[in-house]
């Protein structure tokens, strides 16, 4: 393997949403692509997610939401990240997100939204092309 530093990404399920098949598939794909994936489990509070990102010094946060609560929870997490001086950590959203909400999420500062059926290499390539914004 070349001397490339592994990107650290926290993949989080937030709120009352037990649908974790998608996040597990992405977890495995990123692991096999050489990422270090930190998975804290189901039913995370936004505060807990932000604490995990801070203490793990993550480069990226991926939020998986299939419960329709994205317009409540994602802004909340982004706000908490800002307060915790973590605004340079890249944020991805995955799951069931209606077309109409995607521009709003991007406007809020989400880097990309990946819906169902996204080819896994697309996510991997995106992260590789972006690299780390927190580590020079």
């Amino acid at each position, binding site marked *: *393997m070349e001397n490339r530093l592994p990107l650290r990404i926290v993949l989080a399920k937030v709120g009352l949403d037990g649908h974790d098949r998608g996040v597990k598939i992405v977890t495995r794909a*990123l692991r*096999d*692509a050489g990422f270090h*994936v930190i998975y*804290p489990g189901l039913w995370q509070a936004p505060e*807990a997610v932000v*604490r995990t990102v801070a203490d793990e*010094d993550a480069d990226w946060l991926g939020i998986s939401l299939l419960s329709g609560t994205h317009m409540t929870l994602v802004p909340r997490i982004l706000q908490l990240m800002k307060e915790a001086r973590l605004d340079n950590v890249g944020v991805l959203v995955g799951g069931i997100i209606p077309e109409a909400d995607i521009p709003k999420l991007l406007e809020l500062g989400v880097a990309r939204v990946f819906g169902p059926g996204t080819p896994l290499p697309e996510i991997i390539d995106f992260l590789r092309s972006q690299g780390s914004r927190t580590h020079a």
Partner: protein
Amino acid sequence: MLDDLVARFRNHDRLALARLLTLVARGEQLEAISAAVEPRSSHTPVVAITGNAGVGKSTLVGKLAEHLRAQGTSVAVLACDPQSSLTGGALLGDRVRMPSRPDDAGLYIRSLAAISGNQAVAEHVELMIRLLSAFGFDAILLETVGAGQGDTAVRELADVVVLLVQPETGDELQWEKAGLLEVSDIIVIHKADLAGAERLESQVKELLSLPGCREVAVMRVSSAKNQGLAELWTRIAGLPRRNAAIASGAEQLLRRAQQLLADRLQSHPLQVRPLLDRWQRQELSEAQAADELLQLLTK
């Protein structure tokens, strides 16, 4: 840039601690960071939790952390999971079993990837322990990967090594295999609420009573039923701290020198090869060969 980071670290900036740990995990600027952080404090106990995959290491670490927080003791956890030697990737999932206390500054959990096949903990853990201790954590819990067998590195790092075993995992000969019983200070019969715990406890005790065994405490703990946790910590806290006693002075330097020699040996395979050949052809005794190797590496 490092100066700024260290200044923020000394100002108790948690993000600076997190970033320094990342640098150390990546093996970057080790000398400079090491020079900026005080030597390991003898006041901070480092407790390693080891045992096979699935035996409940993360769960027990989480329960111990909660127990310590309830007593007002601040805790840092270093949780190691395996990193693939093929892809370099890792799934760090120990947090799933650990308490989520987002508002609690007295708990810090860091997931680390340990290159599989090397040792049961990530590289440069010693310096990470010093960072966490200098930051002010009262106790450090070090969770190893689920390797368990043939590993003694944790004994060098930790003051107390707790080995977890669980009922119904194989015959008693398993425990005789190298690396398990010899590294541990306390053996925990984990999942003690399951059938077979008593039988396992008596088997382990019988093994330990054979001539030549060190004295090792055996305790039954059930994280699921919250049984035996307080007793376990009392026992841990009551043990003499192996590394605390030797962490200062000559022993610390010796360990540093050992590490340096090992690194140099790794990076000069070609120069060492002729010496190895001569030794293997028995042209040199082992003592002579070792002596020459030392000269070669310290040139």
